[in-house]
C-alpha cells in the first residue's frame, strides 16, 4: 500500500535555488528507504515535504492519499516524525525528560501514557541517567540521540531521520542499527537520509540516490551499489563488504552483509588449516 507519494515534485527555494526537479517517488507502508546523494543534492529538502513543512512549487505530495497542501504540519507530524540534522535547532527544555515530553503534550497524550513512553524511550536510548539534566549540557552525540528519542517517543507511523549516525560512536551506531531492526519488525515505515553507506549496508534498505535535485536511481541497495559510475556522480562510495565480494574470484550468490559472514566464506573456500 502506498503511504507517501511524490508526484512530479519540483521545489524552488525562496532564494531562487532549485532544490528538486521533477521528483516522482512512492513509498509503501512498512518499507525502509535510504536516501543518499552528495551535499546539496536535495535530500533534506525532499524529506521536509513529507510532513508539509515545504509545499511543492510544482507537482504534489500525498500522504495516505491526501495532498499535504490540505492539512497542517502539526496534523501530519502525528503520523510522520522527522528528526532533523542539527539537534541545536530544537532542544530548548530545562530537562531531558521535558524535552521528550514536549511533542507528546502537543499531541494531547494522557499523563500515564506520557510517563510510560518517556521511561521506555530514555532507557532505550541510554539517556536515563540524564533525565533531570539540561539537554544543552549533553555531548554532541547524546544531543543527536535525544532528538531521535523525542521523535520515537510519540510512536509515529513513519520515522524520518536526517543523518542519524553523525557523531555517534561505534556502540551507539550499532544500537541505532538495532533500533532500525526493531522498528522494521513493528511495521514502521522508515526513511533514513545518510552518507554512511557502511551503516546502511547491513540494513539492506531500498536505496534512492539523489543528485542535483533529481532521483537518479531507485532500487535494491545491493543492485545500485554495484553501479560505480552512478555512485561516483552522486559521490557515494561502495560499501567495503561489497567491494570485497566483487573482488572474489568465486563468491556466494548474494553479497556479504557482515564481516563474520565474509570471513567464514573466505576461510572456508581457501580450506587452509588455520595457523596456530
Amino acid at each position, binding site marked *: 500500500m502506498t503511504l507517501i507519494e511524490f508526484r512530479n515534485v519540483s521545489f524552488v527555494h*525562496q532564494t531562487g535555488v532549485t532544490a528538486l526537479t521533477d521528483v516522482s517517488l512512492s513509498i509503501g507502508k512498512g518499507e525502509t528507504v535510504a536516501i543518499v546523494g552528495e551535499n546539496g543534492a536535495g535530500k533534506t529538502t525532499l524529506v*521536509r515535504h513529507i*510532513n508539509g*513543512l515545504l509545499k511543492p512549487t510544482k507537482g504534489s505530495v500525498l500522504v495516505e492519499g491526501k495532498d499535504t497542501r490540505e492539512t*497542517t*504540519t*502539526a496534523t501530519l*507530524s*502525528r503520523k510522520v*516524525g*522527522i528528526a*532533523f540534522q*542539527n539537534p*541545536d*535547532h*530544537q*532542544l*530548548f527544555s530545562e530537562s531531558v525528560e521535558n524535552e521528550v515530553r*514536549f*511533542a507528546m503534550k*502537543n*499531541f494531547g497524550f494522557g499523563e500515564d501514557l506520557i510517563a510510560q513512553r518517556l521511561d521506555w524511550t530514555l532507557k532505550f536510548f541510554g539517556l536515563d541517567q540524564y533525565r533531570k539534566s539540561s539537554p*544543552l549540557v549533553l555531548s554532541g552525540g547524546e544531543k543527536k540521540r535525544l532528538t531521535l528519542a*523525542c*521523535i520515537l517517543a*510519540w510512536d509515529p507511523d513513519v520515522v524520518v531521520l536526517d543523518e542519524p549516525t553523525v557523531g555517534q560512536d561505534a556502540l551507539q551506531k550499532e544500537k541505532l542499527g538495532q533500533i532500525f531492526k526493531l522498528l522494521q519488525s513493528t511495521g514502521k515505515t522508515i526513511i533514513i537520509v545518510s552518507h554512511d553507506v557502511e551503516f546502511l549496508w547491513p540494513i539492506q534498505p531500498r536505496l534512492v540516490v539523489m543528485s542535483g535535485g533529481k532521483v537518479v536511481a531507485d532500487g535494491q541497495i545491493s543492485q545500485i551499489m554495484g553501479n560505480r559510475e552512478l555512485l561516483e556522480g552522486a559521490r557515494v562510495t561502495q560499501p567495503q563488504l561489497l567491494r570485497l565480494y566483487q573482488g572474489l574470484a568465486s563468491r556466494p550468490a548474494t553479497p556479504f552483509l557482515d564481516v563474520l559472514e565474509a570471513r567464514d566464506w573466505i576461510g572456508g573456500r581457501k580450506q587452509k588449516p588455520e595457523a596456530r
Partner: protein
Amino acid sequence: MYWLSGGFVFRKVISPFHRLDPRAKLLVSMEFFVLSLLSSTVVEVILILVAILLVATVAKSLRRIARTIAFSGLFAVFIFAINFLFGLGLLNALLYSVRFLAIISSTSVFFVTTSPDELEQIMKWMRVPRDVVFAFVTAVRFIPVVMLDAFQIMDAQKSRGLEFEKGNVLKRVRNLVPILIPLVVNSVIRSGELAEAMESRAYGSTPKPTSLYGMRLRWYDVAVAVPSLLLVSAVALVVVFHVTLYI
C-alpha cells in the same frame, strides 16, 4: 516573513550604483535622509520617495526596497492613524507617515547596496575603534544566518506538533519559548566559537593590521557625489531657508 526580511540585507548585484565607492553611497543615502527630515509638504516627501525609488531602480534593487516599504507600511499606517486621531489633520498625518517611509527606504538603499566588507571600510575610514567595527560588521553579516536558524528551528518545532497560531495571547507568547531558546543558545554558542576561531587566527595580535582592499575615490564617484551634494544643498536652501534665487 522571509520575503519581508530581504529589505535590509545585502545581496550581490552588479549595477552602476553598487559600483560606487561606499562613501558615495552613504552620502546619497544620507542626502535622502536629510531631505526627508527637511520636507514640509506631502508633495515634497512623495517627490523624495520617487527619487529614492529611481535610485533603487538604477541599483536594480527596486523589489527589495519595495519590500522594505511594504514592511514599514504597517508602521506608517499606525503613525497615520495616531496622528489623525490626535487631531493633527489629514495632511499632517499623511506627511508624517509618508516621511517615515522615505526615511526608512533612504537607509534601506544604503544597506541593500553596501556589502559588509564595504561597511567595514567605511567605519575604519571614520576611525571607529577596530573592535567596534568588527563587532558591528559581524552582527550585520550574521543577520541572514540567524534568520535561517530561526526558520529551521520553527520547522523543527512544528514537526514536533507545535502550533504557533493556536490559542489565546498568553499561549501564543508561550509558544515562542521553544523558538527563542534554541535561537539565543545557538547565537551565544556561535559567537563563542567565532571568538575562539578569530583568536586562533591571531585577531588583535598587531595594533595596526594591514588591509587587502582599500577604498579609492574614482572620477566616477566624484561625478556622482559632487553634483548630488550640490543639488541637495540647493534644494535645502530653497525649501528650508527660503533663499530665493534671482536669476
